[in-house]
């Protein structure tokens, strides 16, 4: 039977759980690429454009890893959740970029709420293309969404509860595909936890709340994921000790949004921008002095 390849990068960190349950329910086999490693990153650098952001290069690396191991790659296109909630232009072009690099067949759907193209319609399209009956697909969609919502609710509760922790609390403001990527964010989180820091994640809040709250820092912002990121700052600013901004070089939305926010907030912060030549040693030094500063502040 046809096997689907899911790149563990960018879109995976928003839709991975839904996809997995959806395909499980329909008994469609799939393969997920492993956590990002040096090898995957290097293939990404080879096939991707020089100036692409680190996340997109990594994504292309994951596609290269999968291309001979599956019949289809799953690459959606996320245009907008309404005109006030658009995405970075890389979310618009990834499908076409990958399609022009590799010969592998691609399963694709488009989310464009401004044009009434929803996730549900997208998954129905995918299911139909794989030859599944309509009523099965509908059931699978419901199953996947419900399961995702439950998990998401649990994660939000855990993350929100951390705000009451007695430890030093740092809000990590970053896109999930950077936060949870092995070569980008994971080592930073590991280091912070080792230093007995409570790490709070900007993407694990109720996005309905954070999206609205973002207006307190930026009125004209129209990037959905950036809005939710900075909304989390407004939400938690009275309870946290510091903020780490983490971006992949040269992230388009972050270059403007983070700059604006850094000019407006009073919470101590550091800004980490990583690219493919970054080494953790350099990052570690900066984290260390940031934590020292926070600890010193607490003793005053």
């Amino acid at each position, binding site marked *: 039977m046809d096997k689907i390849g899911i790149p563990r990068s960018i879109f995976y960190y928003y839709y991975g759980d839904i996809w997995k349950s959806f395909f499980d329910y329909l008994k469609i086999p799939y393969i997920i690429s492993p956590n990002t490693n040096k090898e995957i990153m290097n293939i990404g650098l080879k096939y991707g454009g020089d100036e692409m952001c680190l996340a997109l290069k990594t994504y292309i690396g994951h596609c290269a890893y999968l291309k001979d191991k599956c019949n289809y790659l799953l690459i959606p296109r996320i245009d907008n959740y309404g005109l006030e909630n658009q995405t*970075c232009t890389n979310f*618009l072009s990834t499908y076409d*970029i990958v399609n022009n690099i590799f010969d592998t067949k691609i399963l694709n759907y488009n989310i464009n709420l401004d044009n009434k193209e929803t996730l549900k319609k997208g998954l129905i399209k995918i299911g139909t293309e794989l030859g599944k009956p309509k009523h099965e697909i509908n059931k699978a969609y419901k199953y996947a969404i419900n399961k995702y919502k439950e998990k998401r609710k649990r994660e939000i509760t855990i993350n929100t509860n951390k705000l009451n922790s007695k430890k030093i609390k740092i809000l990590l403001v970053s896109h999930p595909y950077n936060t949870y990527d092995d070569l980008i964010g994971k080592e930073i989180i590991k280091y912070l936890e080792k230093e007995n820091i409570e790490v709070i994640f900007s993407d694990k809040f109720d996005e309905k709340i954070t999206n609205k709250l973002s207006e307190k820092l930026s009125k004209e*912002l129209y990037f959905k994921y950036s809005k939710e990121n900075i909304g989390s700052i407004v939400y938690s600013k009275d309870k946290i000790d510091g903020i780490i901004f983490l971006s992949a070089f040269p992230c388009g939305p972050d270059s403007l949004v983070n700059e604006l926010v850094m000019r407006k907030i009073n919470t101590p912060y550091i800004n980490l921008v990583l690219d493919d030549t970054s080494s953790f040693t350099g990052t570690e030094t900066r984290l260390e002095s940031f934590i020292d500063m926070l600890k010193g502040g607490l003793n005053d």
Partner: protein
Amino acid sequence: MTKISFPIMGDYHIPANYLLKNVLNAEIISPPMVTAKTIEIGSKYSPEFVCTPFKYTLGTMIESIEKGADTLIQMGGGCRYGYYAELQEKILKDLGYDIKLINLVTKGKTSIKRIYRLIKQIDPKFSKLKAIYYGFITIKMVKYMDNIDEYIRENIGFEIEEGSFEYLKEKCLRDFSKVKNYKELKKLYKKYIKQFTKIQIHKPDNCLKIGIIGELYTIMEPFSNYFLEKELAKNKLEIKRFTNVNYLLFEKRKTIKHYLKYAGEYIKYQMGADAADNIARTKYLCEEGYDGIIHIKSAFCTPEIGAMGVINKIANQYEIPVLFFSFDANTSETGVKTRLEAFYDMLEMRKRK
């Protein structure tokens, strides 16, 4: 009285000036031309890896403020350009400038109502009717300018008396900026078109033809591409360029559907800003027998970075050379010239074979 200004882009400050002057009861501060100094100032206060138009427009804003402006206008685009204004306003205020910034696009949308409200604050006597009337003339002026530019681009490389096109264009723009009504503008346009076609040229049938594609700001602002077109013209090339304000405002919406169909084997979707357009144009230039393609963009322009791989692929399939330029605040004029010369020599050699 409010002193109003706006970022400069190519010659388009002339129609913009015209519109504001006739519609608003405010003093218009014409934006200074972009110079190396502008870019230096702009870069100094901009975030590090923002795309270059942010730095250019910020630099112009600061120079306009120093000329006396207290209200600035910023536009939007299909990428992060639409979000420039909020950060630029913050940067300017942090620098201690007490200014007002009018963003024509907010939250990814243009709301006529909101713009109307903002304008009313500047000029309480503002009349909608007058705005529509002069808006119409301005739109026509842009269209006429773009038409004239297209003719100039195809022929300027072959003028017999050096500078004749440029001289006439300057005169034409000066006259355009003084028109009182549409009839007068139309008459002037017809007169000048005639004069332009009368300029003597020596154009061989088999001259080299190249197409220029790329990111819209860089392609339209002459300073940011270091008079690239002029340099090309010196080498006796015919130039085709697609992007102009008329295209962006009125044609893009229709054309993009046609473009996506035309280049369907390469792209399925829009890729932000003009990226998909440029992919389709690449195919068009290859099919139409152009000798080479030049792609220009500002550093960090995300949509074009995505498109570049596809553009390269198409050009390879058709065996048409492409030259990529990425402009940032540090690009050196000499470097651009050298690469252009080498590119031109290569095209010449290919043609002779």
